[in-house]
């Protein structure tokens, strides 16, 4: 039995080494050479150490993309987690729990491309429902035509799509809490707000951190919704780092640039993960 466990552990290690470590090594390697297509042929040139990093970090496209990524991920998560928490508490206290849960699950199970197309139709000028509603109210919002509103749109779409995920995690944590502290608080005369602030939130903290953890990783890797909705535009306004990696690799064919962006994204994600890990342990 012990030998079987060791064998499986070794097999898992080999697979991990092959599928994760080797590509990671190639990625880091690519970031220290200049690899791109010149005159239709692949070209690999040696460059000074960190020259690629300097080139990428000083590029305005990367700077814009990094800014968009941080704003998009933080704002999305800041909206989704409290919203998920409120929905979890509301549903837990509702008589139609199963109905609400079933409805909320619909948004999660829809494929990202379908979500993007649905929203594109909703906000499309003149024929989209949202555009028509705002026109009736006397104004129009250029969702797809303005850099500012396109960014708002991708946050809205991500929130619509994934708040239910945060809701499900927090709901599961909430319904598994012991009722003893809540009964004690009720007996002591605590109000709902006091109960929420001093009992519910502290007890739910680990669950909320887990939801935050998953959501931040997912939102940093967002691609299909944004790509199908805005194609990363207008004028790269919604090009987050993940999309920039795609553009750099397949459109600009500057593989070193893409490698640096991918490494940056990876380090950003690791930074968030370590932060949440510390929060969990506290």
């Amino acid at each position: 039995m012990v030998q079987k466990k060791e064998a499986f552990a070794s097999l898992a290690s080999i697979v991990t080494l092959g599928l994760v470590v080797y590509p990671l090594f190639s990625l880091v390697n690519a970031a220290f050479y200049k690899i791109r297509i010149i005159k239709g042929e692949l070209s690999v040139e040696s460059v000074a150490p960190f020259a690629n990093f300097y080139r990428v970090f000083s590029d305005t496209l990367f700077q814009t993309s990094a800014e968009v990524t941080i704003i998009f991920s933080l704002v999305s998560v800041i909206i989704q987690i409290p919203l998920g928490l409120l929905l979890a508490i509301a549903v837990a206290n509702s008589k139609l729990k199963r109905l609400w849960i079933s409805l909320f699950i619909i948004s999660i199970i829809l494929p990202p491309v379908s979500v993007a197309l649905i929203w594109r139709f909703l906000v499309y000028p003149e024929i989209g429902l949202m555009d028509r509603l705002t026109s009736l109210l006397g104004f129009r919002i250029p969702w797809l035509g303005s850099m500012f509103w396109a960014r708002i749109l991708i946050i809205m779409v991500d929130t619509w799509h994934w708040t239910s995920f945060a809701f499900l995690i927090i709901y599961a944590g909430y319904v598994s809490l012991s009722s003893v502290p809540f009964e004690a608080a009720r007996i002591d005369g605590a109000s709902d707000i006091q109960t929420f602030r001093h009992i519910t939130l502290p007890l739910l903290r680990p669950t909320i951190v887990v939801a935050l953890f998953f959501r931040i990783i997912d939102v940093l890797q967002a691609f299909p919704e944004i790509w199908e909705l805005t194609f990363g535009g207008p004028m790269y306004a919604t090009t987050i780092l993940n999309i920039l990696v795609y553009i750099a690799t397949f459109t600009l064919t500057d593989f070193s640039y893409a490698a640096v962006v991918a490494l940056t994204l990876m380090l950003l994600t690791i930074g968030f993960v370590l932060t949440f890990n510390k929060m969990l342990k506290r």
Partner: protein
Amino acid sequence: MNNMSQEPKKVDRRKFIYAGLGAAIIIVGGAAIYFATKPPEVTTITSTISTTTTTTTTSISSTTIPTTTTVPTTTTVTQPTTTVTTITTSVAKPKGEITVPLHKPPWLTGFQSVISQYEKANEDAKVSLSSVANITELRDKQVADAINKTGLYDLYMLNQGMGASLLVLGGHTRKIRESDASYEKDPNLIYYGWTYRDNELTALPLNANNDLLYYRGDLFDEKGLKKPDTWDDVVNAAKTLHDPSKPVYGFIPRVADDPCYEWWHMLVSFGGKVFVDAEKGDFTIRVNDEHGLAATETFAELLKYAPPEPMAITQSDIMAYMATGKGAQTLTVYANSPWMDDPTTSIIPMKIQYATPPKGVGLPNCDYGPIDFGCFSLGVSSYAKNKELAYDFAKFCTSYDAQLTLAMMGVGPVRKDVASLPSLIANPKYRALKEQAEALKYMKSLPHIPELTYIHNPIGKTFVQKVVAERNPKDALNWFAEEIYKYLTGQGFKTSWTPLK
């Protein structure tokens, strides 16, 4: 609100095992039933080459296509009839399977018909289409296949706007003479300049899918407007017909998706160029000179008569605007024309008329502006697994039969004998073909360099979006020139640019 903590339930492993076994039985049983009841493949073997004869009678007395919307009531038009002649040949046909990548262009159905035609003529051959999401992905996947030499595709779908020069000049397409040492150029065919490497042909033309000016003939007649010949005519018509209350928009631009062809047509129509003389190796950037400014100012002027949020308009949206009667004019590819007359996709059948992309005025070298940016050729991949079959299919696509099939399905043919077929041209259904034949006389090309595809997209696309967003042609052009300069110097070019003041 809260549940009491419960003791964890013991898991009954047997239930999982039974569930797994049940799922496995269902899957295996389903597969067995599928394969047992799958109908056998039909193997009718007739080796044929089809020839077509057309008999068309029409009561249209004039040889010119009328611009009115009334369809002649006494017109009798018959479809070409096909006679199949069985011939025997001693030449062994290539067999096997090839893979051709393709996005979802308006001419997809026509191309699929040609594939069926070929497979019927060569029953040992199969042509598989590998579908990609859009034309940019078509470029990206073909380039990835070429650079990595994976041989995923046997034929490359070459389009100058989307990487043809890169694939051809990078040596990723076989020279035609390597596939067929006896190949002689067909005088009936149109060959594109960007399919040459070292003065040798490396791809065979597939379609002539340049832009045409689409305009509402009925609305033009109502307002007494003449067929647009210059961009001034287009702007004037857009101003006259623009009525957002109906809504009818004077001009529908394409901005959101790749590629943004229209501006490039305007550039060449005003005598503009990207470089001073790319063929002679002078890559001094002149896209932001007076010619580029005239083109961009015209484009910006037309944006005043565009639908709200032109930034969101894709090619599909252009077709939708025109087919629903909301667009008065647009510049779009020839292959969109069948949609305008199909009653299932258009509420204004037979009302759209066509014109050669207009010319600029007021500057030297102004001319009509069709460019072969949107046209396609087929090149055999240097890494193809079945080079013989790939070449045979590409050559079949240039045949009279294949080109006639394409033409009848609304795809611009590359054969002059098909494009000028009297029975087709006289048919109102194919009135776009008449304009297409005219446009081919003025066809121009952009510089045949691998870097053009990236100058076009993403740099060019961002430039067009900048014009739409900021409506400042001079600034946008200077930005465009500078970005081209930065890109080309990074690629090792000797180039320079001068800001437009």
